[in-house]
């Protein structure tokens, strides 16, 4: 009864894939779930601490020239292809599908990201989260989590260096999962005051009765947990559990 009440009290926001901002620059094709660069929608400035969710396709051999960031936690998740990362911290590294890259930009970082392959596009999610500490010493991290086990959520990011996955300066937890059709699971929100922004990478899902297709985003808050069912085989989802008040 109590759980039922909790579910009915949950608040939600749906961002269908086709309603995202879109930028086509030739070398870069990007869809923005939230206001970014030339896309401005005052109703889509963030989901709590989650400020940017860009779905980027970078043409072969092209990329983002060196540019700065500060006071932002930046997470990149390659979906196809490889990116070559360089920064002024001395890192020069390839990020490939299955990796998770994190930059805590703090007092300031200059970096570039290029498609490492000249002959095929690179696809990746670029995610920015407001930090809970200002002016930290910049840091770079890259992990290759074991995501081979289907039908379970894999934690790839948390606030804790000694927990599963990588970590950032924010009370945020990210989980990735790939599911068989009709597999159902429950995700428990990690911290009171957090909400979950679910982003469907591939296939279709039902979350708390809301059907979602590929690249749809769905924010849920004022609840302790969410119920998730895959509606297709090999359906993939990213859950971002973030503070509603950064």
């Amino acid at each position: 009864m109590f759980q039922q009440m909790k579910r009915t009290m949950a608040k939600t926001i749906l961002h269908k894939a086709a309603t995202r901002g879109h930028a086509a620059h030739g070398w870069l094709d990007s869809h923005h779930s939230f206001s970014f660069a030339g896309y401005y929608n005052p109703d889509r400035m963030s989901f709590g601490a989650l400020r940017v969710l860009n779905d980027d396709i970078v043409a072969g051999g092209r990329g983002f020239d060196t540019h700065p960031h500060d006071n932002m936690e930046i997470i990149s998740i390659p979906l196809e292809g490889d990116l070559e990362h360089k920064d002024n911290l001395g890192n020069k590294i390839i990020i490939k599908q299955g990796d998770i890259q994190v930059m805590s930009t703090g007092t300031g970082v200059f970096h570039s990201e290029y498609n490492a392959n000249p002959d095929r596009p690179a696809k990746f999610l670029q995610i920015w989260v407001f930090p809970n500490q200002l002016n930290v010493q910049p840091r770079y991290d890259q992990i290759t989590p074991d995501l081979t086990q289907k039908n379970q959520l894999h934690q790839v990011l948390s606030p804790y260096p000694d927990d599963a996955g990588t970590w950032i300066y924010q009370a945020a937890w990210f989980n990735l999962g790939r599911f068989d059709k009709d597999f159902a699971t429950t995700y428990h929100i990690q911290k009171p005051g957090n909400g979950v922004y679910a982003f469907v990478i591939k296939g279709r899902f039902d979350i708390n009765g809301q059907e979602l297709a590929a690249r749809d985003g769905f924010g849920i808050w004022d609840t302790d947990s969410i119920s998730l069912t895959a509606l297709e085989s090999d359906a993939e989802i990213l859950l971002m559990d973030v503070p509603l008040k950064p």
Partner: protein
Amino acid sequence: MTTGHTKILAIGRNEEIMTVMQRLLNAPEDWSGQAVTTDEAAYEALQAGAYDIILLCAGITAEEETALRERLSALAPAAIITRHYGGGSGLLRNEILFLLEKK
């Protein structure tokens, strides 16, 4: 929503990033601005001219921010003073539009 020309002052401690901010603040036709790295330079800028928005950028500590906001508010009571996150790339344009819309 405010229309017309917007003057923006940015204060941060990272010289390289503030150099980029200087360029970004003066790129749109409807903006002009100044990016500075010291509080004194910010006070001088405000004494020399009016600004609509003041951005507090990376490197300013919470303690510095309290004192800075007090002094900036006294010098420019009509200006919006806000924290800027991200270093300019990607967010600056729509953050400014959002502030102007709320004004």
